[in-house]
């Protein structure tokens, strides 16, 4: 398999607490694979997703390399993206699919020559005072554009959709911006996408607002927007964690189907090892910002090399879980 993204020695430190969220993480994302990244809170799994998407805020210290190997068609002639100035510390990343949309609309307005690639400067490190070295432009131009080359699905669809914009327009905006469709074509595309994510009453849903939909339906809309520009890579960051078990299973099978149909690469971020295993070809286990173990799903489940992976597996309570109250004298 060919490598889509090579991550080497990636380190991320948030200034707000000075804690290293990622410490020297190296891994390859293979083209067309479904890679799960699992870990508990504070493991750095979401930081890794944001770094790959180029969504980390400007003030965040980033070290290491990320090399993309996109097909020639992608990323070659399109304008570089703008990194929206949104800070994870203010929790605004979660509040916007607008990440891609915001970036896109600035480009759409044209004439903004200060555009930079999401990771340019960020990736090459910056001094304490905020001065930055730009990465070589050859590398910068090959960086994928969020929204066009990378689709991102966040945990909470209520806050990732714009509450005052009709559903159809939110999806069409992505197609309009990145595929350069007319609005009429983009709306038609949005309707097709709503059908692909299996939402009912297509015409009514196009004109509906997010509050009129259930949590699961909203996540379907967020997924439709994420794949609207036919990205090579789809990142789902705890995309089913806020949903109930039944809706979660539906969304996971939707993601599985869309990834297969479009030949996308999937990065699936989750705290749930069983859920990750149900979807992924390979699983990466993070703990305290370090990559503990990376392997084929079967190997991770049946022959984990690291004690922490074994502990995560043992802590899982499945439908075959032994009742705790039957165990006598088990330590608290």
């Amino acid at each position, binding site marked *: 398999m060919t490598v889509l993204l090579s991550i080497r020695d990636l380190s991320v430190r948030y200034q707000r607490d000075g804690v290293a969220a990622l410490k020297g993480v190296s891994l390859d994302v293979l083209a067309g694979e479904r890679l799960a990244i699992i870990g*508990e809170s504070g493991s750095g799994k979401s930081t890794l997703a944001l770094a790959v998407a180029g969504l980390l805020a400007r003030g965040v210290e980033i070290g290491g390399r990320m090399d993309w190997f996109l097909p020639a068609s992608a990323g070659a002639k399109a304008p570089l993206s703008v990194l929206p100035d949104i800070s994870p510390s203010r929790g605004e990343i979660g509040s916007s699919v607008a990440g891609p949309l915001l970036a896109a609309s600035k480009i759409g307005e044209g004439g903004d020559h200060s555009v930079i690639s999401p990771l340019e400067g960020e990736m090459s490190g910056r001094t304490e005072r905020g001065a930055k070295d730009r990465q070589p432009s050859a590398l910068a131009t090959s960086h994928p554009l969020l929204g066009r080359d990378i689709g991102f699905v966040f945990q909470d669809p209520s806050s990732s959709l714009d509450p005052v914009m009709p559903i159809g327009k939110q999806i069409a905006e992505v197609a309009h911006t990145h595929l350069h469709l007319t609005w009429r074509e983009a709306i038609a595309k949005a309707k097709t996408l709503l059908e692909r994510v299996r939402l009912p009453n297509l015409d009514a849903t196009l004109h509906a607002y997010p509050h009129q939909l259930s949590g699961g339906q909203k996540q379907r809309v967020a997924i439709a927007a994420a794949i609207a520009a036919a990205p090579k890579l789809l990142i789902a960051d705890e995309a089913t964690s806020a949903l109930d078990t039944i809706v979660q299973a539906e969304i996971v099978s939707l993601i599985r189907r869309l990834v297969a149909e479009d030949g996308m690469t999937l990065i699936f971020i989750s705290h749930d090892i*069983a859920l990750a295993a149900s979807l992924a070809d390979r699983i990466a286990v993070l703990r305290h910002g370090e990559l503990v173990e990376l392997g084929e799903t079967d190997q991770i489940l049946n022959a984990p090399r690291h004690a922490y992976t074994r502990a995560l597996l043992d802590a*899982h309570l499945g*439908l075959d*879980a032994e*009742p*705790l*109250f039957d165990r006598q004298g088990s330590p608290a």
Partner: protein
Amino acid sequence: MSVLTVSSLAKRYRRGGKPFAAVDDVSFEINPAETLAVAGPSGSGKSTIAKLVLRLIEPDAGRIDFEGQDLLALSGATLRAKRAKVQMVFQDPLAAFNPRATVARVLDDPLRTHNIASRADRPRRIAALLERVGLDAGLAARAIHEISGGQRQRVAIARAIATRPSLIVLDEAVSALDVSVRGQILELLLDLQRQERIAYLFISHDLGVIRAVAHRVVILDAGRIAESGDARDVIAKPQSAIGKALVAATPRLIRNRP
């Protein structure tokens, strides 16, 4: 005698101008030292049942008997006295506490409000409560927002047991915890149940957790009980459509165990 007996409970809301039944003809009972789980999809009425039992909202019909008394008929001082015996732990302990409070303040409140300990005696009682839930007594001076999620949920449990309740309503109480912490919190709850004979109304969407901790389970669908029974039996062989759907949707960890 049961700790809690709920009979033909009903609660209706209006949604989009139309009435709908959040809880419809629900009956169950919980015995001392027993855990009854309530499972079901989003919107099936799980949390409405919790609020009704806690009398945070009033039912439209039905009866709630707690320790042999009609809970809905109580008011004033008698209701307050009974309230001490029914405690609660929610999913997000950060939202359940005043974020600026210290751990000591959080535990001082129930001891003071319910006249359980004198002012002079309370620091000792707070230290004992912290120790009981596996926390260092030195944590008392820390602010709620400074401690970890697992520690915070232990503080929530300490607050719940401060009044020596006979029933604790646990509404998705371990759902937001990391799996490594979750196991420890479940063990703590079971240990408290064995020692103090506390009954739990355990609301959860997670059948794996329910199988691990609950004696019996009630599965809700659109406000009504779809099925109920021994937790292991229901999960092994669900009879209702919603029970089957919940079991089918639960992710399985397929391992070739040694």
